[in-house]
C-alpha cells in the first residue's frame, strides 16, 4: 500500500517538475522580446515607473545570467512562494492576485464536481430501476453531456440572467457592496455564484447519471447478481452490491473528467465575468502578463495533480482488487 502510494507520489512529482519546467520555458523561448511586449501592454505613462518596471523584469528574467542559473533561480523563487510581480497590476505580487481569484474558482469547481457526481450517480442508479424515469433521464442526459460548457453557460446567462433577471449574469458580487461578513453581502455572493455554478453542475450531471445507469444495468446482469437472485436474495441487496461495483468506474471517470471540468470552469467564468482564475487568465493573456499566466498555470497543474492523487487513494481504499494486486497476493 505505502509502496504504491510512494510510486504514485513519485509520478506526480515528476509531472509537477516537468510542468514547472515548461512553464518556465514558455516566456523565455518565445519569439520576440517578452519583456518589451509585456511593458508595451502595461500602458504606464509615467516614464519613471516604466523605467523601474523594465529594470525589474530584466533582472527577473536574468538576461545577463546563464540559462541554468535562471532555471534554478526560478525554482528557488517558487519555494519561497515568489511568483513574480504582475505587469498589468504592477506592482502587485502575482501570488496575491491569484490568491484573490482562487476562492471564486474553488467555490465554483468543488461543489460543481462533487454535487454533480453525487447527485448524478444517485439519479442514474434510481433511473436504472424505473422505466418512466429511465425513458426521460436518458435522452435528457445525453443532450446535457453533449452540450458544451460555454454554450449552456451562455444560454443560462441569457435566459435566467438577462431575460428573466432572476440572477445576476456577471461578476462575483455587486460593485455597490463592500466585501464584508454580512448577510447582505453573502447573499449577493451566492446569487452571483448561482448561474455559473449551475451551468457547470448541469453539464456534468448528465454524464454521471448516464454512466451510472449503464453501469448498474450491467452489474445487475453480472454473474454475482444472478447467483444472489437464484438464492432468493431481495432486489435491495442485489442493487446495493451493484451500486457499489458500479461506483468504481465512476470514480475512475471522475479522475479522467477532472481536466475537462476545470477547463469548463475557466470558460464558464469568462462567460459570467466571474472573478476567478479563468477570468484572470483572459485578462493576463490580453495584457501579455506572463507572470500571472505562469502563476495560474502552476496553480491549475498543482490542483489537478492533488485531485488525481486523492482519487487514486480513494480508489485503492474501496476496490479490493487493486489492493490485492498491490500486495502481490491472490490467485
Amino acid at each position, binding site marked *: 500500500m505505502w509502496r504504491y502510494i510512494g510510486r504514485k507520489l513519485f509520478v506526480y512529482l515528476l509531472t509537477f517538475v516537468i510542468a514547472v519546467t515548461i512553464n518556465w520555458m514558455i516566456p523565455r523561448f518565445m519569439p520576440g522580446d517578452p519583456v518589451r511586449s509585456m511593458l508595451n501592454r502595461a500602458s504606464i505613462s509615467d516614464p519613471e515607473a516604466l523605467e523601474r518596471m523594465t529594470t525589474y523584469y530584466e533582472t527577473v528574467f536574468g538576461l545577463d545570467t546563464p540559462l541554468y542559473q535562471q532555471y534554478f533561480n526560478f525554482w528557488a523563487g517558487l519555494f519561497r512562494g515568489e511568483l513574480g510581480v504582475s505587469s498589468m497590476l504592477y506592482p502587485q505580487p502575482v501570488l496575491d492576485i491569484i490568491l484573490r481569484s482562487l476562492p471564486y474558482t474553488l467555490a465554483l469547481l468543488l461543489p460543481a464536481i462533487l454535487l454533480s457526481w453525487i447527485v448524478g450517480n444517485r439519479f442514474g442508479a434510481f433511473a436504472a430501476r424505473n422505466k418512466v424515469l429511465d425513458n426521460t433521464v436518458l435522452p435528457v442526459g445525453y443532450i446535457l453531456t453533449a452540450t458544451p460548457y460555454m454554450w449552456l453557460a451562455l444560454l443560462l446567462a441569457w435566459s435566467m440572467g438577462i431575460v428573466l433577471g432572476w440572477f445576476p449574469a456577471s461578476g462575483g458580487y455587486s460593485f455597490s457592496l463592500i466585501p464584508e461578513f454580512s448577510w447582505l453581502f453573502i447573499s449577493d455572493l451566492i446569487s452571483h455564484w448561482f448561474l455559473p455554478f449551475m451551468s457547470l453542475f448541469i453539464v456534468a450531471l448528465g454524464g454521471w447519471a448516464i454512466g451510472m445507469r449503464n453501469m448498474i444495468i450491467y452489474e445487475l446482469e*453480472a*454473474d*454475482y447478481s*444472478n*447467483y*444472489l*437472485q*437464484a*438464492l*432468493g*436474495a*431481495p432486489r*435491495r*441487496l442485489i442493487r446495493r*452490491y451493484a451500486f*457499489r*461495483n458500479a461506483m*468504481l468506474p465512476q470514480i475512475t471517470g471522475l479522475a479522467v473528467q477532472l481536466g475537462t471540468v476545470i477547463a469548463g470552469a475557466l470558460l464558464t467564468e469568462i462567460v459570467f465575468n466571474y472573478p476567478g482564475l479563468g477570468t484572470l487568465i483572459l485578462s493576463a493573456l490580453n495584457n501579455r502578463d506572463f507572470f500571472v499566466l505562469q502563476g495560474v498555470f502552476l496553480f491549475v497543474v498543482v490542483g489537478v495533480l492533488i485531485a488525481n492523487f486523492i482519487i487514486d487513494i480513494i480508489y485503492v481504499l*474501496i*476496490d*479490493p*482488487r487493486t489492493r*490485492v494486486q498491490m500486495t502481490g*497476493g*491472490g*490467485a
Partner: protein
Amino acid sequence: MTLRVNDLKVYYQTLRGDVHALDGVTFDLADGEIMGLAGESGCGKTTLGKSLIRLDSRMKHVGGTIELDGKNVPIADEKAMVPLRYHEISLIPQYAMSALNPTRKIGRMIKDLMKARGVDPASIEDELHRRLELVGLEQDVLNRFPIELSGGMKQRVVMVISTLLNPSLLIADEVTSALDVSTQRAVAESMVEFRDRGFVKSMVFVTHDLSLVYQMADTIMVMYAGHVVEKASAKTIVNEPKHPYTQMLISALPEVGSTEEQGRLEGIPGKPPGLLDPPTGCRFKDRCPLAFSKCSERPPLVEIEPGHWAACWKTG
C-alpha cells in the same frame, strides 16, 4: 419421492423466435439420489437446472409441472418462488468462478445473504466453519475477497454457501468443468459427502463428463436437443445403455470409467439440430443409424424395465 418433473417445457424468447430448449422433460428424483445429467453442450442441461430454481428474463415457462416433496413448484411465479429458493432448492451455478461479489469479503457477503434470507448469521456460524473445514478451506477465506482465492477455492466456497441452509434439492451445474483433474475428484467427492451427511437431500449433477459422473452418481439422465432420451442407474447407463444416442456416447468414451480427459463426446458424426425450429419426431433421427419411418413421430419416454426409462421406438 423428492422431485417430480412432468412434461416441462421452457423456451427462450429471442428476436428470431422461441428456442425450444426444454421440450417436454419428464423425470423423477428420489430422496438421497444423486442424478448425473449428461449430454452434449447445448442440449438443455443448464436450462433444466435454471428451470428448477429461477427462470431468467428471457425464459418462458410454456408447460409442464414441477413438484418438490409433494408441493408444487410455481416456477413461473417469481414471488411465490422466493421462499423456496435457497431454503428448499439451491444452485451451484455454471459460472461459480464469478458468482461472488468482487467487492465484498466472503464472510461479509455470507452474512448479508443470511440476513436477507431471514437467517441469523450467528446461528449458522459454527456450521459454516465446520463445512469450510470439511472441503479443506481455512476459516481465513471468510476475511478474503474472491480475487484472493484460486478457482478451486472459489468453487468450494460457492459449494458451501449454496448448501448452507440444507436444501432439499441441489442443482450443481458443471461444478468440475473448470478445474484440473485432481481438484475435480476432490470436489466430486465432497459433493457425495454433502449428500451422505444430509446437507442436501438430493442432487442434480450436471456434467458433460460421463466418466466422472459414473463414479459418483446413483443415476444418470441423458438429454439430447431438449428431450430426455434415457435415464437409469449409473451402472446401467454405462454398461447396458439402450438408447442409440446413449450407446454412441458411451462407445465414444476412451475407456469406460477411466479418468482420461478430453475427447469425450466428439465421436458421433453430425451435430444436434437447432432448437429455434426443431424437427418433429425423434430429434436424434438425422444422426441415428437405426432410424426408420416411425421415427418421424416423437417416441415417448417409457419405463422399459424397473428404473430404466428410454425414449426410442427401437427400445420400446
